């Protein structure tokens, strides 16, 4: 199964994540709306990795569960971590200058969503969108 890792160190890398997710979502056979949803979620999460996680990487792969195909992305950084995950997920909450829609929005746009994070431990966010 194809797999692609994109390092996230700059705003241009966030664009590269979007392009790689698009390419792999097409390869997985996702429809246009599903592609758009996971690419948009990936854009939000990649920006968080850059802005809050101080950079990291995105691992993108096609996944298969029985007859179902989908795209899974794992965003990982070694940044400061998230102390209050519930608060971070709230729409409108931002510790920076954002709109506070990235995490909550990504969760709504994907079929699977998980965050593992703790202060000083970095952050890992996993999302998947199925066909």
């Amino acid at each position: 199964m194809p797999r692609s890792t994109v390092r996230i160190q700059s705003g241009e890398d966030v664009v590269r994540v979007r392009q790689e997710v698009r390419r792999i979502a097409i390869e997985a056979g996702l429809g246009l709306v599903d592609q758009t949803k996971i690419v948009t979620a990936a854009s939000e999460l990649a920006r968080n990795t850059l802005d809050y996680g101080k950079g990291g990487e995105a691992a993108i792969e096609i996944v298969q569960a029985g007859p179902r195909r989908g795209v899974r992305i794992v965003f990982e950084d070694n940044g400061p971590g998230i102390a209050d995950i519930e608060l971070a997920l709230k729409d409108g909450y931002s510790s920076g200058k954002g709109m506070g829609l990235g995490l909550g929005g990504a969760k709504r746009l994907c079929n699977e969503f998980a965050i593992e994070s703790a202060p000083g431990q970095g952050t890992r966010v996993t999302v998947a969108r199925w066909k």
Partner: protein
Amino acid sequence: MDRIPILKLGEALLVTIQVDMHDRLAMALEEDLTTRIVDVAAKGVLIDISALEIVDSFIGRTLANIAMIAKVLDAVTVVVGMRPAVAITLVELGLSLPGVRTALNAERGMAMIRSLLDAEGMAPGEEAEGAA
């Protein structure tokens, strides 16, 4: 750094976003448009996003900011050409674009700008080529 070109068309400014914008490029567009609106005393801003495959919260906020700044500077903003999949995704993302008027395509967007200006009685010179 690259910048997105801004064209002047009568009293309006026209921007066609043809690249997948990174955040600094979007911020530069916001700044450049603000400067140009003042420089040419633009009354309208038309932003064509038909080439954009996604609008995330950063790009969405940039569009909303541009509309807000333009309004303060006495210009109306119309965003045209949003793809259906993008519109569906924006709603689920939770992003509303306050103050952003939309139209299906550039032609209708220009017509909308003209009629808004006519309604305000602010485009006396435009009638000849305009909305008749």
